């Protein structure tokens, strides 16, 4: 692939694809100030998959909203390729926890809605929509309405809608949080395959530690009150993408202890891993 060559040729060696510098965000609720984010620093490289974990209320969704450009009232700096984010744009897509499909449009039209401002011809748009419905395995459901879909299917449509614009950044805000465990495991694999296939840079917010370790190249751990980054753990090559691998379990336990959750002592696999280490 010519990817890395192209990047160095453009001289993008130093500046990161996404750079969050000293970002703080306050809300005032009923006259009281709530510090949602405090001095956030995070740089994400092209093609990277970053997982963010943290208890609820620690500002994860707020951070994604700022990156999207939905809210520009904050301190600090958020830059994409060195340009400050001023407003939402088709280079940044999001999948919310709820699918947010428009109920009056069918699956196809929901995905196509993301291309309305793309300037592409109707034929090009149709092809992109078909490709992406195929990518999430829903070719058969193009004409169905959201009310006829299961939660997992609806979320796959939302993923297709987020990717159909070929965004540079895919932001995922607990996208699988509302799904049952089996569907979630299946969609994690699907998400991984799709993001690799499209070469998208991804930021995934989740409260499922397994998911964070399984999908992320790095894991950002956040603490609440005020929302801040506690640490960033790399997912090294030694950690295979096998949920029962000792290295996987060790990293998962490390994340859990950063989150203030005691290690899973009764987990035989974890015990074994620790003894053999």
């Amino acid at each position: 692939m010519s990817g890395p060559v192209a990047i160095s040729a453009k001289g993008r060696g130093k500046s990161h694809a996404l750079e969050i510098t000293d970002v703080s965000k306050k809300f005032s609720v009923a006259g009281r100030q709530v510090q949602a984010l405090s001095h956030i620093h995070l740089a994400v490289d092209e093609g990277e998959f970053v997982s963010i974990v943290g208890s609820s209320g620690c500002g994860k969704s707020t951070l994604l909203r700022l990156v999207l450009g939905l809210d520009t009232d904050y301190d600090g700096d958020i830059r994409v390729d060195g340009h400050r984010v001023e407003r939402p744009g088709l280079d940044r897509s999001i999948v919310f926890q709820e699918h947010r499909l428009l109920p009056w449009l069918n699956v196809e039209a929901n995905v196509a809605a993301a291309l309305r401002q793309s300037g592409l011809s109707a034929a090009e748009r149709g092809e992109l929509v078909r490709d992406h419905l195929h990518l999430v395995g829903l070719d058969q459901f193009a004409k169905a309405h959201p009310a006829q879909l299961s939660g997992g299917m609806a979320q796959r449509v939302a993923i297709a809608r987020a990717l159909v614009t070929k965004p540079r950044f895919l932001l995922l805000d607990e996208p699988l949080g509302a799904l049952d465990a089996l569907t979630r495991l299946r969609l994690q694999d699907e998400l991984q395959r799709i993001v690799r296939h499209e070469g998208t840079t991804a930021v995934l917010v989740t409260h499922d530690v397994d998911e964070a370790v399984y999908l992320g190249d790095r894991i950002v751990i956040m603490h609440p009150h005020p929302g801040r980054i506690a640490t960033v753990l790399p997912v090294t090559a030694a950690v295979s993408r096998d949920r029962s691998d000792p290295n996987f379990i060790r990293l998962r336990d490390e994340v859990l202890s950063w989150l203030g959750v005691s290690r899973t002592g009764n987990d035989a696999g974890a015990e074994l891993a620790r003894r053999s280490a």
Partner: protein
Amino acid sequence: MGAGQATALSGHGDSTAGAAPTHRRIFPAAGALALGLVVPLGLLTAWTVAALLGQLPEQILPPPWIVFDTLLEGIQDGSLLSSTVTSLKRVAEGFAAGALVGLVFGTAVGLSKTLREFVDPLFLALSQVPTLGWMPIVILIVGIDEGLKIIVIGWSAFIPVVLNTSQGVRDVPEAYVELGRVLSFSRWSKLTMIVLPSAIPSIFTGLREGLANGWQTLVAVELIASFEGLGYLMAYGRQLFQLELVLSAMIVVGLIGLAFHGLLTLTENHLQRWRPETPR
């Protein structure tokens, strides 16, 4: 014979199963219609019995068969038909104008907080004045011709359409508005893909109220300033103590109103056909 057919039918298990969904779809509608007929038929029966027993003085409430005869006569000699056509035309024109302007104005007011702050107090005050209260002023300005009827009917339809449309537009879920921003929608896309589809139920509530208002105003305005139409027929019948004429005009007004209402509901259901079937 009948029993034989029944066994033959129940023998075909497959075909019965295949027909079942259709039955279920048709029966609720038919059932609702049947239930809706219970009270009117009961009243009609009571009315008939009371008339047969001579309990009702004809000057107060003529017996149903006389009303029915009057209805038939009016249809045959064309007098009822031409009144109906005149009134229908007035309501259609007034309602169309009022609803159309109301939709545009209501959407604009719903979308723009500034516009809302400008017009809300005045509009609320004006809408409190009964339509008939406007009549003397409108007569002074446009006279007593067709223009008067269209304006007054239009105004009475306009008010609920504006109120409901602007409410519906304001109630668009924030999550969808945000989605529109994430997808970089233009104003037009936002309006057609998000705001209007989401406001459909409110808009149709407004249209239904507007239509009912339109009919009521029609009758009132024809009582005062007309020499034809269903409202005029009622006023005329009352003056001549021909209550069967009044009643037959009332029946026509009621039936047409019901038909319009049904038409609006059908349109709304068609626009909202994406809705999941709700358990009854």
